[in-house]
């Protein structure tokens, strides 16, 4: 049988071709935050199992969450959660067949990003207020 060379077919334009736009970045960010939450939820399960187990294990987990690195991870987790949730609300709107007006789409993307940052900081202010 004759050697067949793979044909150099043109590829459809992809990420590196398009000018980055906010809506595109928000779409990518929705997937990235979803993936981060996928692994981040281990933190919640860790906390639950530790609380169900014994003092020593629970104190270890609380110690991690009290450490600056643990706090940083939790802060990132909070932002990912809020961002993904707000992104989900946008998707609910689109699922009804509404909200595809380009100006509105752009505005919602901006609100999502700004809202996620503001709400995350607000939650942490509340968190530090609640903590004894």
């Amino acid at each position, binding site marked *: 049988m004759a050697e067949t060379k793979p044909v150099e077919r043109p590829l459809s334009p992809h990420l590196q071709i398009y000018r980055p736009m906010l809506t595109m970045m928000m779409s990518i960010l929705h997937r990235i935050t979803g993936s981060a939450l996928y692994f981040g*939820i281990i933190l919640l399960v860790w906390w639950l199992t530790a*609380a169900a187990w014994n003092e020593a294990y*629970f104190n270890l987990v609380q110690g991690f969450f009290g450490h600056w690195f643990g706090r940083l991870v939790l802060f990132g987790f909070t932002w990912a959660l809020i961002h993904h*949730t707000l992104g989900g609300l946008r998707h609910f709107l689109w699922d009804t067949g509404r909200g595809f007006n380009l100006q509105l789409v752009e505005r919602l993307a901006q609100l999502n990003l700004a809202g996620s940052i503001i709400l995350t900081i607000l939650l942490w202010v509340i*968190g530090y207020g609640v903590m004894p």
Partner: protein
Amino acid sequence: MSLATPLKKVRGLGTAKSGTEHFWMQRVTAIANVPLVLATLACVIYHLGSSRVEVVASFQNPLVALTVALTMISVLWHMRLGMQVIIEDYVHGPALKLMLLLLNTFYTVALGAAAIYAILRMNFGL
């Protein structure tokens, strides 16, 4: 002339053997996630700096235990569907794809089992 049986025709699924369940459950769990996650978040913030005894006491309230348990089920289900799409989008080798899809299921079910067991343990005061 179609050779499909009437049952096959009325199901309308073809060779894919499944239809819109994935899309639909992604939305159902997403809707459920909104109030559930907010409630669980409130529970976690309430317990910042709490001792273990206080956390366990909280989970002895059935409302807290059930809310967090339902959150875990809805969130993990949603996660599994989402990661399935990511794997199907980016992994093209059939063997690796199948392995990752299996891992996705095992990972989410294992986390769910651990969380539910922990919640029940606290609820029953073991």
